[in-house]
């Protein structure tokens, strides 16, 4: 027996309460509803729908319920604001793929949404008299349902385990790294040494059981531009997890893919972070911790070398410090940051100024010392083809071209080791020494050329040499009662 009839063109009266005709004449209620036989079909629906478009327009009105029929069977109902027939068409299309039936209605009675057989939708021939909260009318069945329980979408999404997918690799522009407490400081040092732009914070969760007396603590790094060479190391080291951002406030472990396109489901707080792990439940961070730039957290043990002599007994770590050296480097350095013209070549510099352009003369700064002239410029000192070239290692430190600083410490750290002379530009020499020239000594080259008094030599302040060596000095201790007690000749 037919339960439904097709809505005809220009039909004005419908039997199902709350059902009306929209501007195109399609039978439509205030709400849409999709009936799924099980939760996994609902997940499939969400996976397909979120891949194509965002759930944001539906999210406020979205409601998931497990319903029970009179026969005791349980099914899943997804309800949402119908909006327009366009939206309903998209939902119905995806629901068909996922094995669900689409209905429309307003309060309690929902009738099958339109399909190819009925372009204007369906109307029920007879309304079931029932107090049940849900009555569905389909071409093949008519059923009433009781609400069993409500399913929270957030909990449903959080409960889904990501699938292993080796191809799920982000672009690396932003990566979250979660590390065990024992590995955190080493990672800070590793990233700093490799000059990785990253921030770090510490996240805490309550103890997992009452037997634990300390909170669960992890280091959380936000790495910008993770080099591909580091990915295998970080991805395969036990205790370190790599997570690619999958949307605002959510990230998925590298090598895994969440069944649902999380970027299309705006249920995550951007102020917090949810980390979906491949094995195990997701980690939720309600409020992101303060993330500090790594440069402000790098290990400072080498700075102990700078402690004043009266600052107490220096620990054995000081013995680990090594002097900074310059060695020939392999990296191509094309940009010239500064030029040093020795006294012997100053005449050549004077002649060269006749052929330099006005911009170069104005943009080049020169400082004259008793060793020669140091030149820098806004765009480097490449316009001057004379002297010894330096590349800019730090805004205030210059290194001879072709040489690299070893150990490969962060430029800021080396600057600190040199005493952070804010008013000096430091030029490292190939023999390990360092020369400091006061910033105030630099004047525009054009002024220096035309004003003879600006060429007065400025003394170059020799910074403390890191290679200074003391004289070996013998100090003899008392030898006790039997001074040769332990010394025996070979017999």
């Amino acid at each position, binding site marked *: 027996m037919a339960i439904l009839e097709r809505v005809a063109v220009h039909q004005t009266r419908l039997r199902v309460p709350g059902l009306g005709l929209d501007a195109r004449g399609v039978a439509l209620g205030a709400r849409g509803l999709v009936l799924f036989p099980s939760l996994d079909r609902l997940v499939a629906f969400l996976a397909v729908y979120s891949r194509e478009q965002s759930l944001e327009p539906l999210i406020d009105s979205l409601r998931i319920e497990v319903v029970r029929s009179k026969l005791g069977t349980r099914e899943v109902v997804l309800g949402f604001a119908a909006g327009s027939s366009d939206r309903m068409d998209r939902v119905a299309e995806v629901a068909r793929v996922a094995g669900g039936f689409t209905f429309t209605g307003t309060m309690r009675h929902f009738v099958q949404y339109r399909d190819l057989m009925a372009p204007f939708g369906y109307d029920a021939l007879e309304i079931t008299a029932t107090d049940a909260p849900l009555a569905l009318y389909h071409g093949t069945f008519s059923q009433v349902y009781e609400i069993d329980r409500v399913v929270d979408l957030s909990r449903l999404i959080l409960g889904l385990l990501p699938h292993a997918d080796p191809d799920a690799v982000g672009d690396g522009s932003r990566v979250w790294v979660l590390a065990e407490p024992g590995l955190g400081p080493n990672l800070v040092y590793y990233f700093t040494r490799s000059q990785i732009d990253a921030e770090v914070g510490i996240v805490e969760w309550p103890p997992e059981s009452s037997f634990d007396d300390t909170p669960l603590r992890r280091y959380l790094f936000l790495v910008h531009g993770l080099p591909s060479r580091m990915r295998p190391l970080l991805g395969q080291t036990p205790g370190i997890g790599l997570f690619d951002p999958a949307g605002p406030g959510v990230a998925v472990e590298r090598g895994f893919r969440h069944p649902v396109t999380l970027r299309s489901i705006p249920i995550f707080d951007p102020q917090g972070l949810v980390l979906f792990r491949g094995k195990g439940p997701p980690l939720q961070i309600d409020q992101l911790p303060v993330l500090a730039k790594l440069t402000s957290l790098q290990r400072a043990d080498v700075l102990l070398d700078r402690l004043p002599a009266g600052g107490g007994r220096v620990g054995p770590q000081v013995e680990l410090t090594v002097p900074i050296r310059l060695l020939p480097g392999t990296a191509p350095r094309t940009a010239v940051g500064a030029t040093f013209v020795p006294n012997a070549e100053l005449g050549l510099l004077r002649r060269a100024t006749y052929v330099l352009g006005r911009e170069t003369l104005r943009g080049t700064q020169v400082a004259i010392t008793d060793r020669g002239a140091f030149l820098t410029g806004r765009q480097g000192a490449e316009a001057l083809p004379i002297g010894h070239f330096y590349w800019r290692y730090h805004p205030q430190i210059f290194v001879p071209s072709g040489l690299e600083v070893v150990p490969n410490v962060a430029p800021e750290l080396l600057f600190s080791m040199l005493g952070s002379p804010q008013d000096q530009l430091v030029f490292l020499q190939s023999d390990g020494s360092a020369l400091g020239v006061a910033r105030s000594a630099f004047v525009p080259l054009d002024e220096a050329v035309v004003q003879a008094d600006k060429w007065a030599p400025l003394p170059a302040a020799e910074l403390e040499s890191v290679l200074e060596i003391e004289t070996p*000095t013998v100090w003899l201790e008392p030898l006790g009662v039997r*001074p040769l007690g332990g010394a025996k000749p070979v017999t």
Partner: protein
Amino acid sequence: MKEARAKILLAHQLGRQVLASLTGGGGIEPLPPVGSARAIAAVEDELPLPDEVAPRIRLARHRVACRLCPLDRLPELGRAEWLMGLALNDLLQATNPDLVGVLGRDRPRRLIEMAHQMLDAAGAPATIGEALARHGTFSRLGEVRRIDTTVSWWVGSATFRGQHPPARLSVWPELRRVRSQEEAVNLAAMPPAEAAWRDEWLACLARLYAASPLTDLAAVTRTAPTFQWTGASLGLTRSPLGRRLALRAVERSAEPRRAVGALAEAARDVGTGPARNHAEGFAAELESILHART
């Protein structure tokens, strides 16, 4: 097991208290006399440097070696270098005023004999690389000094050789008219002038120099013990590469001009024959290099 731990402990103490300061500068605090039996037994196994000073020693040795030839890395301290370090330790302790005591006038002499035994066991370097490594460790031997402090007060005075004077001597400085004077004593002047064993001590120091021929040649202008050509230095300068390194070592020493005269004078003691010709030829080649420079 216990013996192995004792050997490692000895190596760590020597590295920390003697070798680190010898190569990198600072205070040398010699170990109590070691003796040849313990030293030769200790170097039967490979000895490690203590972690806290190993990088510093490696860097200092490498820096010295790099002055003579471009080298990526220098071998770790070998058996001979450990023996030479232990011999130096006992030589320094032989000058310790506490060693003699009341009934031990012959103790310095016994210690010097044991240092000779250690240097016998070390022998001459077998390769140019070994000579370079030894020079890396002992190049600053001639710079070693000791601070002697003389404290005088209104009724007396006392001299402390390499030791800090006790604080009680400095109390009431104005009332007791206390005056303190420090004097830096170089290595060759460490044995007291009146000591009967002084010549034996200097002979042993000369053997220590000879065990590192590049160091020996680089310090050719020293006043005591005077440089003498030995089998090790003649052997080193026989090979073209060793000769070039030796010339560089002398040429880059503090007084290369005086070195020519010292080498020529030492050549006269070699005797006659090819060895003397070789020694004189070395001095002549150095002179021609220096002349070409000017």
